[in-house]
């Protein structure tokens, strides 16, 4: 789990970009199970992109349901669309800085594809006039499903990449201490 990462490491990664990474020396090899700083920094950024895109899929999906339920309303008026666009921009920016280790090389491409799918939906919402039609919504849903499947394909629960966020459910307090339990 990377829950124990210090803010310092995270900020160094975010502000320092690849330079920040280069400055970091590999950790002692005495403990092979402890990832080196570069791997840790990668995980932080990877999860940032992953969580951002994952939340966007849920957010935009919900907007589509509301668009359908409140037929004819212009989604562009909803403030959450602006937030979605901003979050997408942030995710793509972090994605551009991702520097995956060899064994995770596929992550970046999949995330890029997922971001493209979400972009297509946001662009469609931007373009629409007078509300989305059912075919518009179904097409948007297909893009979001494709994005969801791409994220699913890089899920790794050992580093917190999961489609359902259970890290902070009340259950997880117990889990951290090694107990069982599940949020309901």
């Amino acid at each position: 789990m990377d829950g124990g990462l210090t803010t310092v490491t995270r900020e160094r990664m975010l502000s320092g970009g690849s330079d920040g990474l280069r400055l970091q020396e590999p950790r002692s090899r005495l403990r092979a199970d402890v990832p080196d700083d570069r791997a840790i920094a990668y995980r932080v950024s990877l999860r940032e992109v992953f969580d951002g895109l994952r939340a966007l899929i849920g957010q935009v999906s919900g907007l589509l349901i509301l668009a359908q339920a409140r037929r004819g309303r212009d989604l562009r008026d909803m403030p959450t669309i602006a937030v979605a666009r901003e979050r997408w921009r942030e995710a793509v920016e972090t994605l551009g800085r991702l520097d995956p280790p060899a064994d995770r090389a596929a992550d970046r491409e999949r995330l890029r594809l997922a971001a493209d799918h979400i972009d297509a939906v946001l662009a469609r919402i931007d373009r629409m006039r007078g509300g989305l039609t059912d075919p518009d919504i179904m097409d948007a849903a297909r893009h979001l499903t494709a994005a969801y499947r791409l994220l699913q394909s890089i899920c790794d629960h050992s580093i917190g990449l999961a489609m359902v966020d259970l890290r902070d459910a009340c259950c997880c307090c117990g889990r951290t201490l090694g107990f069982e339990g599940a949020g309901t």
Partner: protein
Amino acid sequence: MTQYSIWVLEYAYVTKFHRSGVLYGAHNQGYLKLPYCYTVIKGNGHVAMVDVGYNDKDYGKAIADGLGVKNWHSPRTVLAEIGLRPEDVDTIFISHAHFDHFGNVEDFPRATFYIQEREIAKWVWAMSLPERMRFVLSGIDPGDILRGVELACNRRLVCVDGDCEDVLPGIDLHAAPDTHTWGSMWIAVRNDGRRESQDVWVLAGDLAYQFENLGDSGAGGAPDGMFIPVGLAVGSQMNLIATTEQMVKQVGNETRRVIPIHEERLRDRFPSRITDKGLRITEICLAGGVRSLVA
């Protein structure tokens, strides 16, 4: 005559759930078994359900490994125990959008789903919050919301705005805003079909996990203790308690008629049996002329 039969069907369980998750403030009071269930309401020519559980194939292993959920079985297997198939279900009330309640819509190809519009709208808002506020997102799978889009386009998702009477004859939906979730709802079955019913059952969703939430230490009559909110909420304790008051009032203070589906001790109060898969079926009531499926 009694219109509907009601069964609570266990589809998985957690053997060791911390008690403070169930009862607000019950710190250091150990663990209990927490069944994961959905409810079938059958009668009047309908097969309805409250909630659909989650789908094991997408992330079941992660949930099992990470959270200790055990013995998951599909709706096809679980419903077969009461002689039903998922395609027989025509109406589904989603008490709230947590993965273990809303996580398996695709297994019910013919059903129309009812959910509070507020539940969707507020999750949309919550998903736009900064990452550091993600506490409020726990238990939500964006994929469930995404599957809701397809349902909506196929006119199989009804977004309800507040209370709604007689969604099916004698079945009412009651909104419980800003409680366990932003748009939770509870379901009342007026089983004699009368407006001033003497035979009401309330299906509480996660507005009550266990008897103690209802001020009921086990006797099942009038509440004999104070209401205790559930341990997990994005709304307020006050709203949870006010909702509990409404639910208990609806059943004329006879708290045994409010059904908390995460309550293992339903077996002490209603006829039940364990299937060969090790899951419990609890028979809350039977419609006129219907034979027991647990005897």
